[in-house]
């Protein structure tokens, strides 16, 4: 009996690993998720007071230790805001002069709100289940935002439920850009085992990145190849830059903007390519 169970597990593992997402095993899995999702959504609502109390205790302890750090960040951001306001004014004037239509607000990507109904406890999959699916216009690959930043993309969709793979999952990668003077670009990859940190790899060895620089999605388009994400979605900020790590490995650590373990609701951008920057002939 024991041998039979082990053999069945190994057969399932081998079959599933080699299958495409449209194969029978995946379809059965999606069907079961569809059946389970109302139960899970109900349980999530019923158990939310318990969850809130536990998270409140955890958040309070964490907030106390973050006060000094956030005060310093606040001072830095106030200074940055003044600079950016001036630059924005200049940008608006120049945009009007060259007749460029820049519509890159989140609203243009048709965001759909959803609640988190389930979360994966393991360190390896980093997925959350949300209560919006193809009925709401969600498609596979749609970017997902929460807590002011990019948190992942939709990897499985059913009628009323979707699975979102987080940016800290081992399988994740995205083109990203540092908002430094040169606008250095790289590939954002997770640092497996450290859910509070990402790595921006493939940067130029002499990139002028500094701690606190904002990292956003690139939103590239190269021939028929288009990034899943629109440009300018905030991902995180550059952490402590080690010049040796940057020069030798071409990578810097990035702290995600969103608190990936605490968000309860998300915004799914259902039309991520609806508002690309385009030039207009006057």
């Amino acid at each position, binding site marked *: *009996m*024991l041998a039979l*169970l*082990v053999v*069945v*597990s*190994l*057969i*399932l*593992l*081998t*079959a*599933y*690993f080699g299958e495409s997402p449209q194969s029978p*095993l995946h379809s*059965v*899995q999606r069907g*079961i*998720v569809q059946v*389970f999702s109302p139960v*899970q959504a109900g*349980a*999530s609502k019923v*158990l*939310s007071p*318990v*969850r809130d109390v*536990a*998270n409140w205790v*955890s958040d309070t302890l964490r907030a106390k230790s973050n006060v000094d750090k956030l005060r310093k960040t606040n001072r830095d951001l106030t200074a940055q805001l003044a600079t950016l306001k001036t630059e924005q004014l200049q940008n608006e004037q120049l945009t009007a002069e060259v007749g460029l239509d820049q519509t890159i607000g989140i609203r243009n990507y048709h965001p759909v709100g959803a609640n*988190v*109904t*389930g*979360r*994966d*406890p*393991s*360190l*390896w*999959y980093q*997925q959350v*289940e949300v209560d919006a699916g193809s009925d709401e216009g969600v498609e596979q690959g749609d970017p997902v935002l929460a807590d002011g930043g990019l948190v992942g993309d939709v*990897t*499985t969709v059913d009628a009323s439920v979707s699975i979102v793979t987080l940016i800290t999952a*081992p399988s*994740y*990668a995205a083109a990203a850009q540092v908002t430094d003077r040169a606008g250095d670009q790289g590939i954002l*990859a*997770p*640092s*497996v*085992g*450290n*859910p*509070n*940190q990402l*790595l921006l*790899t493939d940067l130029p060895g002499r990139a002028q990145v500094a701690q606190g620089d904002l990292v956003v999605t690139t939103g590239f388009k190269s021939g028929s190849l288009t990034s899943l994400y629109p440009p300018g979605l905030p991902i995180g900020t550059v952490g402590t830059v080690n010049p040796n790590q940057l020069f030798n490995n071409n990578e810097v650590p990035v702290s995600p903007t969103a608190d990936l*373990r*605490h968000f309860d609701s998300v915004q799914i951008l259902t039309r991520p390519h609806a508002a690309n920057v385009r030039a207009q002939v006057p």
Partner: protein
Amino acid sequence: MSPPPLRLILRLVLLALGTVVIQEAAVSQISIFGISADLTPLMVMSVGLLAGSLTGAVMGFATGLLVDTVLVQTLGITSLLYIAIGYWAGRLRELRDPAHGLVPLAAGAAATAVAGIGMTLIQFLLGVDAPVSLLLFQQIFITILVNTLISLPVYAVVRRIIHPALPDDPRRRRRRAYTTGGLSPLQSSSKRLGQITRGGG
């Protein structure tokens, strides 16, 4: 070996479903020291300790399959790990029959370690493209610590749910008799007989 009674099977099915739903809907969303507790390996370990190796292994397989399905993970990985946990906990009971109250604590730590380290090994065997941080081991260690702390209440709840449906184990019945003095070889036969006579009125 006779199959487990229907009442026990029904309770085990409800226990597996309830644990997975509570885990996904609530426990996974509570962060303690940056990680979440995982009830499922503790529940499988508790069933193994209470019901034996075969029941533990089957429960491990079914719970693992449910976890993999509901979380849209690679099917079979969690089943494989939980079979080992359920079977091992059951064998511990069958070979040693530990009676100490803190056994679930140690068994919970071991079960979580098997689940965490086993998952890591299987993921490495399947191939990991992303860079791996050494903090992974710290995360596994903290998970073991948190799960160890909650293993006693989880064991108590599982015991409360499935104990009334468990078939009476002759070895446990014998031990109960020894504990109460009914069959203890340390007592003289006359004393034992006196107890029985008094008990019998």
